[in-house]
């Protein structure tokens, strides 16, 4: 209750501290556990958001405008992604999507743009099945595929398909700064591959940006008719690509090709990659390096060592119970990577998924929140 004593003082009582004091009334719960029943966004227990609008972008992609609840800081860096958790058939499923809206100081919403993947039941649900008003869970922005501060003078964005979304956040940020400071946009080239013009997300907005900013050039490549971009001909498309800091985002094969091309040119340090497709470590073999994020420890393990055993060997204070996959005491949050349940071969690879460490082994590298 100490925060109430400050009322008469010079410092104002923060709303958070006031609620913390209120937990004396609601213990063992927090006031937020009650407040969220009045308004689902009035809680900081878990980051939440309400879907305000679903804007169709193309036939199979939509932008979700989400109003985050308490505890959300609108300070994502342009290019970062957020986790979004949706309850389907009673179970929360998590995916990460790039934020396509620029950071706002007084913003009330964020936007993510999602393309329905043929095999992705969750992305399909997000594009076609999410009604405005739906409450979703959110995870804080993360990722280092971001626009540097200040931006370099010459930039190249190499984009394939829905890889445009993080780049759009960067372009919108550059556009807003150019407008508010009456400064020219840096020299930016966007090379955007898409199967057809119709499947190009943000094509009208890009045309508008291109018109308003002479220093922005957009190359559009329709791969259904014109074929894929061959990097060996990059010099003919853009002769000064070696002088530019490059951000590439798109399907894994494209990124692999870009990576080796830049490496051969000795320019790997000027290339930034965002891999937004699922990566099965190496050749799909088991085992890998487990990173325990909070404790900062790592463990190299084979495919027969459970995550729990690996953590204990590495000196992490792992919670455990039955050690047989029944009691869920050992459950931890998977931050990234893939793990396999030894009992049934099920694989878990959703970020923020709760996994039972005592019966699972890593499939490639993975990171856990402990």
């Amino acid at each position: 209750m100490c925060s109430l004593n400050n009322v008469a003082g010079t410092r104002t009582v923060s709303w958070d501290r006031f609620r913390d004091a209120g937990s004396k009334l609601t213990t063992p719960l927090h006031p937020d556990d009650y407040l969220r029943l009045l308004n689902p966004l009035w809680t900081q227990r878990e980051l939440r958001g309400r879907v305000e609008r679903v804007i169709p972008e193309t036939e199979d992609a939509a932008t979700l405008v989400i109003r985050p609840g308490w505890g959300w800081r609108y300070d994502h860096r342009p290019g970062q992604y957020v986790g979004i958790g949706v309850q389907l058939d009673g179970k929360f499923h998590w995916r990460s999507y790039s934020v396509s809206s620029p950071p706002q100081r007084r913003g009330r919403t964020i936007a993510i743009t999602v393309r329905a993947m043929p095999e992705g039941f969750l992305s399909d649900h997000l594009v076609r099945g999410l009604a405005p008003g739906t409450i979703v869970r959110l995870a804080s922005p993360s990722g280092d595929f971001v626009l540097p501060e200040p931006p370099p003078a010459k930039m190249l964005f190499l984009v394939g398909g829905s890889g445009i979304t993080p780049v759009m956040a960067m372009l919108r940020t550059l556009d807003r700064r150019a407008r508010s400071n009456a400064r020219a946009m840096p020299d930016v080239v966007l090379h955007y591959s898409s199967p057809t013009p119709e499947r190009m997300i943000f094509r009208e907005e890009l045309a508008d940006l291109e018109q308003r900013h002479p220093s922005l050039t957009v190359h559009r490549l329709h791969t259904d008719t014109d074929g894929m971009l061959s990097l060996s001909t990059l010099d003919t498309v853009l002769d000064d690509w070696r002088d530019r800091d490059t951000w590439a985002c798109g399907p894994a094969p494209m990124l692999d090709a870009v990576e080796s091309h830049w490496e051969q040119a000795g320019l790997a340090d000027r290339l930034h990659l965002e891999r937004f497709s699922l990566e099965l470590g190496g050749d799909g073999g088991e085992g890998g390096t487990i990173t325990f994020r909070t404790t900062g420890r790592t463990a190299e393990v084979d495919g027969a060592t459970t995550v729990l055993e690996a953590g204990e060997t590495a000196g992490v204070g792992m919670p455990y119970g039955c050690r047989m996959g029944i009691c869920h005491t050992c459950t931890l949050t998977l931050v990234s990577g893939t793990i396999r349940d030894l009992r049934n071969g099920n694989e878990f690879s959703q970020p923020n998924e709760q996994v039972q460490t005592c019966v699972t082994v890593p499939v490639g590298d993975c990171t856990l929140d402990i």
Partner: protein
Amino acid sequence: MAISDVKEYTHLTEEEVEQLGRELDAIRAEVEESRCDADAAYINRVIRVQRGLAAAGRLTLLAGLQSRRTRTPAWIAGAGLLGLAKILENMEIGHNVMHGQWDWMNDPEIHSSNWEWDTAQPAEQWKHSHNYIHHQFTNVLGHDNDIGYGVLRMAREQRWHPVYLGQPVFNALLAGLFQWGVALHDLDLEAIRTGKKDPVEMRRQLRQIARKGRNQVLKDYVVYPALSGRQWRSTLKANATANLTRNLWSYMIIFCGHFPDGALHFTEEELEDETRAEWYLRQMLGSANFEGGRLLHVMSGSLGFQIEHHLFPDLPSNRYPEIAVKVQALCEKYDIPYTTGPLHHQYGQALRTIMKLSLPNSMTSSDKPEPPSPSVDRRRRTDAERPRRRTETGGYYRSQSA
């Protein structure tokens, strides 16, 4: 005679017991696969109702006690709403969430790993004494500390001592102070008395209990009365009444789980090489249901389906009624007793056992289907002395510090 071999007792062959186990596994798999939106909606609805009741109870007391005209009805309504909220929180929500019944939703707000309930017992200690000790070693003499909770003599195999003459009084005290009895349950008072308890662990557990208990006491007996101004005394009494109501109710429901006559005891020999199917069978023989409507079952945390709960402690409680139909059919098929009856009948039997066992065995007759076996050592086993943890009873862990 407490049972030393469930197969022998039920006259089932090893193959039949294993077949029964497979059929129960199939029931589990079916429920696990069909968990869906409706189940998630159920627990969220119960939580919403419970928090609504709690808030309504507190507000009714805070506001209603201030005016003389509304004072009496507000006191009755407030204490009643609060009592209901506490019962619902402890039984249908807290107990079941901590078993991991809702972990499948992947919702960190309704998860066994971090749920803390509205009672004095810290969740971590509850999950050890209940999920592990009680659910794995159910009704095994000398292993299940819930046979009498270290206070009462509930099996004829427990050696009689003149102190048990006071059993009717201990029973009444336990009922009235149930949350505090539960709070101390995982400590093992006897080991502390005989100096066998690890002092570091004891201090850690006591600190945990003190912190949780202090918050609970402050809330009900200091903060809310203080907010009631001149009516602090009425609020304090109403809160005490709500706590007492919850204590009496949960005590009664819990005593109907394993103390009615049909719920059998087992000896340590049963644990040797016990298979999963035999564990199932022991749960069925050692538990007792009671009958009632949907509301009664929800208010008793679905423990009227004690048999189903002990077979599948981590399946969602709203599924127990449908599971019960299948389990009953299996009991009929394999000719296994399925103990059930009206609530008053089941509790009556438990109470009769409490009274009878306050006296030496020679002065009373057994109500169990079998005569008692020789008496057993009542010392609690440490975790190291117990067979390895095996099943789906819900988790526990020991944190390093309080």
